[in-house]
């Protein structure tokens, strides 16, 4: 886990490299004027990122390494729930049973809760309504989806992703 000034400069360098790569890829014209404008906008972006506290430690570098596995699981989850929701919408009787559930978020830092809330919203059939003081309020399209969510798989995965 990176800490203090060292972590700050690692993040700074990572964002700088990303911005330079993005500019060079998207621009495609390599004249001094445009490269100068690119440098200027990179500096501006870094300044803005500094101002919103982007370089203060929000998550560990190891969380990024765990991200692909989490995304693979999330993709599978999205596919499954998409098929369910599509079946419900196409059903003539529209068998919905809207349910609102509340539960505590397992990740205790803000980024983990954002990841959890956004993952829940991204998978169809569940929409995060409110995240407040570590408590999530989620609207579910059917009661089965609500029960599945209350069993805590999302919570466990998100906490696992964000643990140090």
């Amino acid at each position, binding site marked *: 886990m990176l800490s203090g000034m060292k972590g700050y400069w690692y993040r700074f360098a990572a964002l700088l490299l990303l911005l330079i790569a*993005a500019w060079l*890829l*998207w621009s495609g014209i390599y004249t001094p004027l445009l490269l100068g404008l690119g440098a200027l906008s990179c500096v501006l972006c870094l300044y803005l990122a500094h101002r919103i506290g982007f370089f203060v430690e929000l998550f560990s570098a190891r969380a990024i390494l765990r991200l692909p596995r989490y995304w693979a699981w999330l*993709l599978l989850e*999205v*596919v499954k729930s*998409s098929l369910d*929701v*599509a079946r419900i*919408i*196409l059903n003539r009787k*529209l068998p*919905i*049973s*809207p*349910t*609102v*559930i*509340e539960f505590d978020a397992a990740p205790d830092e803000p980024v983990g809760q954002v990841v959890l*809330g*956004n*993952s829940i*919203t*991204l*998978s*169809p*059939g*569940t*929409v*995060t*309504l*409110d*995240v407040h003081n570590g408590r999530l*309020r989620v*609207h579910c*399209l059917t*009661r089965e989806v*609500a029960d599945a969510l209350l069993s805590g798989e999302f919570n466990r995965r998100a906490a696992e992703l964000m643990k140090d």
Partner: protein
Amino acid sequence: MQSAVDVLSWILLAAGGAFVFVGGLGALRLPDFYTRMHAASLTDGMGTILILVGIMLQAGWSLAAIKLIAILVCLLLTSPTASYALANAALLSGVEPGNSRAGKAEN
């Protein structure tokens, strides 16, 4: 080999188009605001992934594929955030979520 990739990408595109259409249908058919959000997230999540990955397979390894990945990542990060902002704004301004069944299930 090339034709296998082609077939796969056509399948993904067709499935994506179908999901996008079903989501649009749901936005019209479902009865209240919060349930309509599920239909929107159907097109935003699954439809986007399928269509953009389908196009990506057609693009192959090129600059276009990198741009498509950037669009996909950008959409997948922003659309749940926008949905949350929308749902939260509706909740805070007093649109009631769910119906009478919601109270019993709450714990």
